[in-house]
């Protein structure tokens, strides 16, 4: 049965994605209060009052870790947007915190809302007036189409094919189990218990890999911090501008123009990046510049990846060798700027400077090499991230929730098989697993299973 019928408790981040001052996680449904109580520790006690703002902390009930300081408000149904009990958690903005809070409420029993679902409930529960019915229908349709086109994107496409494999293996175990149930008098060769368990543990491993890739998939949601470092006047700010495709930093030919740290947000192939331009790092007497250099070193320490810019048209200086020393143990990309000018770098120096890291030659004047740089950044961002899941990273809480449900069902079916349970019991779990991934790969109907049985076994008298 499609999820849309289930009047369970749904949750979603209500504020737009990206960095903002406040992020709101909204819950709607009969368990809103129950779930909120599990994760929100408020200062005051006593029963929840509707429309009152409570101060407290979001705490992971699993390990007691405080996630964030937050404000909460309950809007008791029917006096709420959906006419159900609605609970909102206002926490600090930033996708990391809001995602973690959302994950918590999902773990405690909420289900990720479908597109337009809050609005739909509002309508079905009589909250929105009749003239808005058409608008709601359009909304559902629009979201449906957006979802559809999203399915065509590369990530979703790969998830689809991975899960199709999962579906296929589950269906096969299910078909064998069903044949065993429905055709007791046939001489058919069914898979053994061990074969079932092997197939299911493969499926479980695959699901586990995908689920853990969600944490690695954080780079897609929360992004990475990049810092541009280099000796003064090698073109750091020009590079920033080029990457951002706009004039943001002041660019002059006077070394040391950038005294403070400039931060900008950008996106390379879906990976959000926080890009910081820093003062050129060099030995200096200028007090203001000393501050800038100090700051730059701190930013460098915190950054995930450094873009180490050198001037390819001039020989290397001591400052650069010092900086290279500081970059040891850090992810960085060596960028040789000014490729429009004759090269003055020796190959052995380049290979010493880059070590194990990537090196790209660019010109901030002509834009040459910028695509190669984007490639290098993307590659670096995902390096070592997604091996467990065969290179596939899942990014949506909804997908993770789905996969977790499927994994739980697969695990309990395995338990059933190990405990020599009659197949009609563990097939309930197999079906539940197939139902869980239904939203991504489509439904598995009893006819699909029967088709498998009849194509695989010689059955019937």
């Amino acid at each position, binding site marked *: *049965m499609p999820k849309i*019928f289930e009047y369970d408790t749904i949750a979603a981040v209500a504020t737009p994605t990206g960095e903002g001052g406040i992020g709101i996680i909204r819950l709607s449904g009969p368990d809103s209060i129950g779930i909120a109580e599990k994760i929100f520790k408020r200062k005051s006690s006593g029963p929840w009052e509707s429309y009152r703002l409570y101060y407290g902390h979001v705490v992971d009930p699993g390990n007691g870790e405080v996630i964030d300081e937050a404000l909460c408000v309950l809007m008791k149904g029917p006096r709420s947007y959906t006419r159900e009990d609605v609970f909102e958690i206002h926490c600090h903005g930033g996708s990391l915190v809001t995602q973690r809070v959302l994950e918590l409420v999902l773990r405690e029993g909420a289900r990720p809302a479908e597109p337009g679902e809050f609005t739909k409930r509002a309508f079905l529960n009589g909250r929105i007036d009749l003239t808005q019915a058409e608008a709601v229908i359009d909304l559902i349709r629009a979201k449906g189409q957006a979802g559809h086109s999203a399915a065509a994107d590369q990530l979703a496409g790969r998830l689809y094919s991975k899960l199709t494999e999962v579906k296929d293996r589950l269906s096969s175990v299910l078909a064998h189990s069903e044949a065993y149930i*429905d055709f007791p008098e046939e001489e058919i060769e069914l898979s053994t218990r061990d074969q079932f368990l092997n197939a299911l543990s493969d499926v479980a491993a695959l699901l586990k890999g995908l689920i853990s890739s969600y944490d690695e998939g954080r780079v897609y949601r929360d992004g990475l911090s990049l810092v541009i470092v280099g000796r003064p006047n090698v073109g750091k700010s020009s590079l920033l501008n080029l990457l951002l495709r706009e004039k943001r930093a002041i660019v002059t030919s006077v070394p040391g123009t950038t005294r403070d740290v400039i931060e900008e947000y950008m996106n390379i192939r879906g990976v959000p990046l926080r890009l910081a331009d820093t003062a050129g790092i060099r030995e200096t007497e200028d007090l203001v510049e000393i501050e800038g250099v100090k700051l730059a070193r701190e930013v460098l320490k915190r950054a995930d990846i450094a873009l180490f810019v050198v001037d390819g048209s001039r020989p290397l200086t001591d400052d650069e060798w010092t900086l290279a020393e500081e970059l040891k143990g850090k992810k960085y990309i060596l960028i040789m700027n000014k490729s429009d000018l004759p090269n003055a770098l020796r190959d052995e120096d380049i290979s010493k400077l880059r070590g194990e890291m990537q090196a790209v030659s660019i010109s901030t004047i002509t834009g040459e090499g910028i695509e190669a740089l984007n490639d290098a950044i993307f590659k670096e961002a995902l390096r070592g991230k997604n091996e467990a899941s065969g290179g596939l990273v899942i990014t949506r809480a909804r997908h993770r929730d789905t996969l977790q449900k499927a994994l739980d069902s697969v695990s309990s079916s395995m338990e059933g098989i190990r405990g020599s349970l009659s197949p*009609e*019991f563990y097939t309930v779990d197999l079906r539940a697993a197939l139902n869980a991934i239904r939203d991504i790969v489509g439904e598995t109907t009893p006819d699909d299973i029967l088709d498998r049985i009849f194509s695989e076994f010689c059955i019937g*008298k």
Partner: protein
Amino acid sequence: MKDSKIYDVIVIGSGHAGCEASLAAARVGLSTLCLTINLDTIGLMSCNPAIGGLAKGHLVKEIDALGGEMAKNTDATGIQFRILNASKGPAVRGSRAQADRTLYKNRMKTVMESQPNLDVKQGIVDDILVEEGHVVGVRSNIGVEYYGKSVVITSGTFMKGLIHVGLVNYAGGRSGDLPSEKLSDSLRNLGFEIGRLKTGTCPRLDAKTIDFSNLIPQHGDEPPAPFSFSTKEITQRQVPCYITYTNEETHNIIRSGLDRSPLYSGVIQGVGPRYCPSIEDKIVRFPDKIRHQIFLEPEGYATQEIYPNGLSTSLPYDIQLKLVRSIPGLEKAEIMRPGYAIEYDFASPTQLKPSLETKMVKGLFFAGQINGTSGYEEAAAQGLIAGINAALFVKEEEPLIIDRSEGYIGVMIDDLVTKGTSEPYRMFTSRAEYRLHLREDNADLRLREKGYSIGLVSEDDYRAFTEKKREIEAEMERLKTVKVPVTAEVNSKLESLNSVRIVEPITLENLLKRPEIRYKYLMEIAELPHPHPDPLPDGEGKLPPLQGEGWGGDGVSKAVAEQVEIQIKYQGYIDRQMEQVERFRKTEKMRIPDDLDYSEVPSLSREVRDKLSKIRPLSIGQASRISGITPAALSILMVYLKGRNRKQNGGAVGWIKA
């Protein structure tokens, strides 16, 4: 000529569907006519002489719970009873019985003919008479017009039946019976979509010519377990079947005859069932299989005819004879009747409402193979529902609709009317999503009330049912309250049952939840000496007043014990299933009005709109099961209906109640 009577219900056909339909209508007090092509073949088993099996046994028990005849008829004439899957869980055990073909049909004929309100007559129906969209009667091939307020068609394989043996074919409703050549034309003229299906059967062998000495006998269960909730015991003599196998020679013979197979030479157009393939189909599709099992089933006490189950074929007669004789035990076998395939007309079941009434003609109902199903049990179940609903139609009452959470009957009818079928539809337990709840053992608990309120269950049967229900509740309660004390005897008994010792008193219910503890062991534990915790003043260690009353139980019946055991042992799974059932019922209650014009629903794709207009689902739940109806389309529909409803009710919120 016009028949002077006006019947309430006219049933065409007297097979398994026709008999149930006729009896149901007559038993609720409506004047009923059953017209059959041949009065000598009432309730005839055209194919194998057996009733039940996996999922089919479920249907038979449900028919019985509702007050149908099939289970009783089987109990009275069965010659071998077995419970299939006895080693598996209770939900997937299936009862199966071999029946004496002649006794079965004779008893059914007697029941039909002695049923008050029921006229049984011979006649071939050529035309369905319809006035202004209402059925008014039927016309026979000799020009007799019978009038009726409702008509149930159970035509089996008779409509334009075409029998194939090799490349020879001839018209027939079944081997030895006339076909109905004109009825499907009449339906086509009324606007029904008619298709073509195919099925087949085995040659019948002469037992005198079979050498059983080296074959493996297969005996039934002892004691045989009856189908009907009303049958106390099976007393007639039970007989064995025998098992033999095909071999490579058999397969070569079959291959040598494929060029004259109507199936492979393209003569047969109708679609056959994949789960009931002919032997040639099995050889072609699974060439690596070195042998196929054949069950030799006796057709009755007083006949030599043997049904070689597994040898369905439409190969030419010479090949049939050769292939039979290549099989161990059958080297000298004579064929008494050849195997054959039959093609017949059916009407796509998506043209029906869940009541089995046609959407196009009021008062006209279809049941059995005309709806694209196969199997006696599937036919009987539909016949019963069609008969009941024809009667309710005449009485202007709401139809009886069993939903998917109430019975296999509901699963089957919902599948048929919602999805249609492209091959003969057979019931499987895997089709039932609430399989753990839809068990043979609780068919009465699920459906007896309905049968009684319609008037098909006798007062005696109903009283027995309510008594059983009461006993189950009382026993469940007792097991919850009575505690087993910690004694050396109890613990050594538990150890002998490979069960963990108890360290504190435990309820019988919790003990029964242990997988290794069966209900009967509770009784054994109850019989152990149980000293009173505090010795009585006179020093006599009298037997319990233990914690709780009624320690030993007062001997509940086997059926009650079984029910209690299942409900307690599988409670976790059953509860989970019941939660799903609750959710399912919610969407079934979201009714879609009959008169909804889908072209007025905005934003639906053309494909979705066409499908919904064709199927006309009764509820959002049913709509969700139509293939190709997306969750988005359902959302749109729900929102539209809500808006429409609110407009009509002046702002009130709530689903339209049917």
